[in-house]
């Protein structure tokens, strides 16, 4: 579970951070992710190489310094020894020494000390008793305070010794040489104080910082084991150095880093001399920062190259991204244009690459779409849009399917006589206007125009698109068409009175593309179509605007009908009851409802052959509505039937003689 959660959150992280709104950002980020680490690694390698080289140089330099230092110390000792040796051989000194008189000897020593530029001078007996000491003028007949120097001298074949040690808390380089007269008769001791000058002279030769320290076994006054004796470092650095050295164990003759007053010093410690109290250490140091100084220039160049390369990469990235995204933007814009139906939009991308090919493809596609749209438009004009859509979607194939459909036939009454009284152009204008407006009404009621047959219109409901309320829609369309014609008549544009007859029938028919392979027509065929046409022609006879079949009436629950008659249809034994569609039930007036009630009552009498009862109602209705043709028809028909005797086998079905 946790693993999945983790993965999810990881995915979300990537989605959040690597979802780009612009292709350009993606390319730049990609370039940066690829190039930055490489450049950074290079930069770090160079920097590291510089540091390593600088350290190597320092290492070498410190080694040289160490050698020079050791040499310098040896030289200094030899110098000092030479001086004392010369003194011990000085014949003038010998008589003075042999007086063994404290004051005489002290005076002599002071004179010689000055001559040798020394800091302290002593004369001892061979038993190490002080005869005179220039540092402690009053001291005499006391044992020498650096007995180890004499021990060392005694063990030397020349009787000579030198060492670094403290006298009154200050470091001295002291030497002992016997006074030969000619037998070794005295010890001559001479000492030089180790001052900063000593370090400075070494620094002059080695260009390294030189410090002389004493590492005491017992902590000195400050609690530290380290004590600076002489140094070329600043006072602050010396203090820090003492403290820093106290904190870790020094490996002699190995480099280590010491940070003093903010500067990193590569340091090397050399043990010079050891005694019971501790040991004297030379600390040789070189600043790492200073050693790196020549490399900083190189580093600057590398950093500049790094930034220039970065700039070039980003600029290049932007350029490439633009090169790619500009055509993509154009293509996106083109796609939007196409979406809005502007198929004449073409893209101009002068490239030979994949994008150029894509643009060409896009243009071909747009042209194809434009052609298709043209066809669709044309098709929509020739056939109903719904049929056109059906054709485009299902393809143009011959053949059909059995479907329930409602067929509406509409015809202009007395069109032939209308044509006779008006010129053709006027008629055509009228016809076009009328058919356009009627087509509009049919469209509004989900019907499709099947065809125009001269002045007649055949419309279909429920095909090709299934419509469960097809019958009701068809009847409502018929009512609306009648209203549209009244409107045209009221507009008084055409100076002629138009009236329509409409027949509506619902039936199972075969719907589909009919005709030849090269020329076909979406239509319906079947008995139901003929019945619809028949109903249309009967409207003139009964003098009603809309006649619907029983089947259609059954399907329309919201519309008020009036039964008109039952007629015999050719080839069918059963009669077909036909109805006049009046209006929507909610819109029907009380008078019309009363008329329907009365008429249907009369029809009941008529069907029962109660002629007299029927006639009374028919006559009453005719009196109130003298223009209603079917009242007259029934009155006439009843009078005819009355003449015959009651016939039990009579059926109230009327057979029309006309077609």
């Amino acid at each position: 579970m946790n693993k999945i959660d983790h993965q999810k959150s990881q995915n979300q992280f990537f989605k959040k951070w690597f979802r780009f709104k612009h292709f350009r950002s993606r390319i730049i980020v990609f370039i940066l992710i690829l190039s930055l680490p490489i450049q950074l690694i290079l930069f770090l390698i160079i920097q590291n190489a510089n540091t390593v080289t600088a350290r190597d140089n320092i290492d070498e330099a410190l080694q040289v310094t160490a050698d020079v230092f050791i040499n310098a110390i040896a030289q200094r000792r030899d110098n000092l020894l030479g001086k004392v040796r010369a003194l011990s051989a000085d014949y003038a000194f010998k008589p003075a020494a042999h007086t063994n008189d404290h004051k005489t000897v002290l005076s002599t020593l002071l004179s010689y000390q000055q001559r040798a530029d020394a800091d302290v001078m002593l004369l001892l007996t061979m038993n190490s008793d002080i005869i005179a000491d220039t540092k402690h003028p009053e001291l005499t007949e006391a044992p020498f305070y650096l007995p180890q120097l004499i021990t060392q001298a005694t063990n030397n074949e020349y009787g000579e010794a030198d060492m670094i040690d403290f006298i009154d808390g200050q470091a001295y380089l002291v030497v002992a040489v016997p006074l030969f007269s000619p037998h070794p008769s005295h010890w001559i001791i001479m000492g030089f104080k180790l001052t900063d000058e000593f370090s400075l002279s070494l620094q002059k030769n080695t260009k390294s910082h030189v410090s002389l320290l004493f590492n005491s076994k017992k902590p000195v006054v400050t609690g530290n084991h380290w004590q600076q004796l002489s140094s070329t470092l600043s006072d602050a650095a010396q203090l820090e150095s003492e403290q820093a050295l106290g904190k870790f164990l020094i490996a002699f003759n190995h480099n280590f880093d010491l940070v003093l007053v903010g500067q990193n010093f590569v340091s090397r410690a050399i043990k010079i001399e050891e005694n019971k109290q501790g040991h004297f250490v030379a600390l040789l140091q070189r600043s790492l920062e200073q050693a790196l100084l020549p490399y900083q220039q190189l580093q600057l160049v590398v950093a500049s190259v790094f930034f220039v390369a970065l700039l070039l990469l980003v600029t290049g990235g932007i350029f490439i991204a633009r090169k790619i995204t500009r055509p993509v933007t154009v293509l996106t814009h083109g796609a939007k244009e196409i979406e809005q139906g502007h198929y004449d939009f073409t893209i101009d991308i002068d490239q030979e690459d994949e994008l150029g090919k894509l643009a060409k493809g896009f243009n071909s596609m747009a042209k194809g779409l434009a052609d298709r749209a043209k066809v669709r438009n044309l098709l929509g004009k020739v056939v109903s849009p719904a049929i056109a859509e059906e054709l485009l979607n299902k393809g143009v194939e011959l053949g059909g399917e059995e479907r329930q459909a409602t067929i509406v036939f509409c015809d202009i009454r007395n069109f032939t006589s209308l044509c006779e009284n008006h010129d053709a152009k006027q008629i055509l204008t009228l016809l076009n206007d009328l058919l356009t407006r009627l087509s509009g009404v049919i469209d509004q009621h989900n019907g499709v125009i099947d065809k125009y047959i001269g002045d007649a219109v055949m419309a279909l409901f429920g095909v090709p698109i299934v419509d469960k309320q097809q019958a009701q829609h068809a009847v409502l369309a018929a009512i609306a068409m009648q209203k549209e014609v009244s409107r045209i008549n009221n507009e008084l544009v055409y100076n002629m009175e138009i009236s329509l007859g409409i027949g509506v029938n619902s039936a199972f028919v075969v719907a589909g593309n009919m005709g030849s392979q090269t020329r076909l027509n979406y239509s319906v065929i079947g008995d139901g179509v003929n019945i619809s046409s028949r109903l249309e022609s009967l409207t003139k006879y009964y003098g009603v605007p809309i006649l619907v079949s029983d089947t259609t009436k059954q399907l329309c629950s919201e519309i008020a009908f009036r039964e008109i008659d039952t007629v015999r249809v050719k080839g069918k034994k059963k009669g077909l009851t036909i109805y006049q569609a009046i209006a929507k039930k909610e819109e029907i007036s009380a008078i019309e409802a009363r008329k329907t009630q009365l008429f249907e009552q009369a029809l009941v009498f008529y069907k029962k052959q109660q002629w007299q009862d029927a006639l009374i109602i028919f006559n009453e209705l005719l009196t109130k509505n003298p223009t209603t043709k079917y009242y007259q028809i029934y009155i006439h028909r009843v009078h005819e039937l009355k003449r015959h005797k009651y016939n039990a086998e009579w059926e109230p079905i009327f057979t029309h003689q006309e077609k």
Partner: protein
Amino acid sequence: MLAIWLLTFSLQTFANRLNITVIDENNKPIENAVVYINESLAESIEKVVVIDQVDKEFIPYVTAIRRGSAINFPNNDEIRHQVYSFSNSKNFELPLYKGNEFRPVIFEKSGEVPLACNIHDWMKAYIYVVDTDKFDLTNSEGKGELVNLKAGQYEVLVWHPEQGADVSESLQTVTLGNSPQQLKFTLAQTPKFKAWRAPKGFKRRGY
């Protein structure tokens, strides 16, 4: 030296003698040790002894004399030499000279007298002045002898330049009868510091 030896050899038939061996702690013979009888005879000039200066060296290295004797210091080198001693027995100086300019120096006080030349640090010699006429120097085998001794009891002392202890500590008492006697001295030596010698094979150290 041959003369002295011949003299003592000729006398040994008339009197008894002491054969003395001087060795160090490592059983090695000590040459140039002065062996002598501890007695206090009056001073007398028996003869003039010579300490030569040849090729910037004193010859011999050690000379034993009876108190009151004189030593002549002829210079046989081409260059001048100086001779000095700050010893308690004889503090003297012969300023730079050539040939045989000075009269012999008389040594009136017993004890050791280290000699040196003030311009040649390594030139060194020792004179040991004794209060007896019975003394000898050991040879390279550490052997010396005291001759012409009558029977009786003697105190014998040994001195040499690198002796660590005081000379009195070497004292041995011996009773001599009619036959010669052997006497052996074992002496501790103090380390002997080398003085720097310039002209011969001198190499500077450490430069």
